[in-house]
């Protein structure tokens, strides 16, 4: 026996082009919705991971704009000012502090990078403390520096790939014309470390004429310590500022939220347009089948049966459109990421659009709800058709 689903499906096939165009409308709105929600989820997850990968909760740096400095640091750029290494000893004495990590970032201009030159960044670290800070870093080749004063370099995977370096090769620091021996190449991490060239802190300090100076001190707190209270304590130190990574995250997320509201508005408009499209398609279909529905009623179909039949048509359209939209979002997630990275002033490393099963199910539920709501009026109208009036009419 033929089911209501089969009847509804066949009805949709009668006007294939119209049904297809409606499907495209629903698919596009589902695509926008999934991509937006996936971005919402993915961006925050990647930002959290980037911050967690830094291995510390607070950063101490010279006075300046903390957010600019923090963003530059997240991007692997340079800090703006320098602080004395002695601060590290002072901070380390605090009972709340588990560990401190000295860092010096320096950049040189490389005139032979591209048409008009470019900046090459170097990151001075103490291998022992840095390895403790980032235990997840694994070496593809070699290992850490042999000496704190050595002219040796450890390269992130992408930096090594771009420079075609292997352990034992040399790199040249432009501007300073100083050679470094590559002693280690890291595995790919999916973070900013991939594009970084690490050199011994002391060597970098010496080369840039900044003995005992740092751009940043990373502070890892003991478990259970309230970072906000400790932050207040650090504010008493002169000429330095404290940047909490939670604060950095909140600020970046605050900036992103404006963009998200705009995209969400577009998604809502797209969904409304799709809804109108669905209502229009089903209403047209009801109108064209005016007589047919009348005949169905004369042979015993109840208003509720007609209502269900029309409602099912809407549901089928929305279900197929939703699946297509989700598929489209999955297929184009990489392209969406490229676009986001192009337009966003700062994007964390790793996936920016995270589409998981929960999100897929949520989107499908939203699209089906929209289908149910959109189908109400056409289905109600179809259910109210009077049989005799319909048969007598010339419509359909």
């Amino acid at each position: 026996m033929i089911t209501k689903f089969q009847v509804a499906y066949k009805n949709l096939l009668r006007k294939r082009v119209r049904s297809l165009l409606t499907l495209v409308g629903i698919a596009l709105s589902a695509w926008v919705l999934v991509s937006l929600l996936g971005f919402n989820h993915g961006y925050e997850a990647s930002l959290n991971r980037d911050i967690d990968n830094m291995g510390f909760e607070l950063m101490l740096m010279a006075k300046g704009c903390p957010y600019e400095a923090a963003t530059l640091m997240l991007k692997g750029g340079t800090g703006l000012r320098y602080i004395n290494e002695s601060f590290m000893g002072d901070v380390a004495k605090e009972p709340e502090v588990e560990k401190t990590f000295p860092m010096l970032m320096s950049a040189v201009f490389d005139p032979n990078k591209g048409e008009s030159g470019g900046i090459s960044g170097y990151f001075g670290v103490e291998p022992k403390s840095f390895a403790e800070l980032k235990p997840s870093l694994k070496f593809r080749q070699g290992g850490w520096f042999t000496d704190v004063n050595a002219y040796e370099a450890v390269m992130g995977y992408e930096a090594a790939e771009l420079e075609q370096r292997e352990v034992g090769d040399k790199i040249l620091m432009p501007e300073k014309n100083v050679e470094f021996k590559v002693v280690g190449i890291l595995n790919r991490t999916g973070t900013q470390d991939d594009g970084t060239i690490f050199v011994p802190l002391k060597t970098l300090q010496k080369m840039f004429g900044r003995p005992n100076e740092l751009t940043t001190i990373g502070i890892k707190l003991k478990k259970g310590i309230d970072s906000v209270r400790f932050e207040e304590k650090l504010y008493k130190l002169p000429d330095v500022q404290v940047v909490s990574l939670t604060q950095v995250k909140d600020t970046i997320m605050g900036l992103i939220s404006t963009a998200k509201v705009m995209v969400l508005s577009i998604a809502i408009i797209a969904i409304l347009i799709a809804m109108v499209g669905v209502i229009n398609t089903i209403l047209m279909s009801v109108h064209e089948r005016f007589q047919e529905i009348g005949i169905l009623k004369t042979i015993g179909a109840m208003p509720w049966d007609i209502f269900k039949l029309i409602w099912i048509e809407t549901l089928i359209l929305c279900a197929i459109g939703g699946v297509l939209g989700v598929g489209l979002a999955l297929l184009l997630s990489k392209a969406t990421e490229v676009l986001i990275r192009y337009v966003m002033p700062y994007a964390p490393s790793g996936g920016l659009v995270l589409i998981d099963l929960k999100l897929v199910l949520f989107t499908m539920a939203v699209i089906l709800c929209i289908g149910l709501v959109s189908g109400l009026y056409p289905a109600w109208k179809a259910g109210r058709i009077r049989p005799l009036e319909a048969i007598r009419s010339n419509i359909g």
Partner: protein
Amino acid sequence: MGQEACILSRWALILTILLLLTGYSVAWSAVGCDLNDPDRDVARLFPESTGYKTIYTSVVQKGGDPLLTKIETRLGEKFHGIYETIDVPYTVYEIFANKKKVGYIHGVNQKGQFGGIQVFVSLDLEGRIKAFYIQKMTSKYAGKLRDANFGKQFLGLTFKDFDLYDVTSGKATGKVADIKNPAPEAEADFRAALRATKKNLILMDEFVYSSQAGSSNTGAPQK
């Protein structure tokens, strides 16, 4: 309907998974060599151009291991290092002047003494070098090797000229032998630039000119 829908959904699922896997493998594959600013660089390297099309390819896509062996034989040595691999993506810029194809721009990465070297050549439809450009080079003498006068020595040369250049010994006969090293102190980088050019021309011959000629036996571009 039920069975059809089942088959369709199964195919859709398989296709989706395959495409996703391809997407991920592209994201994690070896590094390619692209122009930093294609709009600006294409206009500079091919002044008569009015547009360009970007094509991505690789040895693994174009012929796999047999093609790699062929390229290595023509180059005169094996691909070496952990970054010169069969899956390196190459970007070929097809150049158009008023919708008519007039040539190509193609670049390769090459290991230099102190860092990666990116060597681009623009070629006419017969495979002759129209412009030579080192996009990136790390060397104390990079300025001399990136100088326009050094690049001018490559103009008009084809892969046939570079066939007479031995990448292992650095010895050349014919027109390539006339290319003067402007920085004798940076002999390693000079040789790296020549090797990159030879590799670049061989790859272009295999990817473009041979396939256009319908034969890949000689690799000779057809006039």
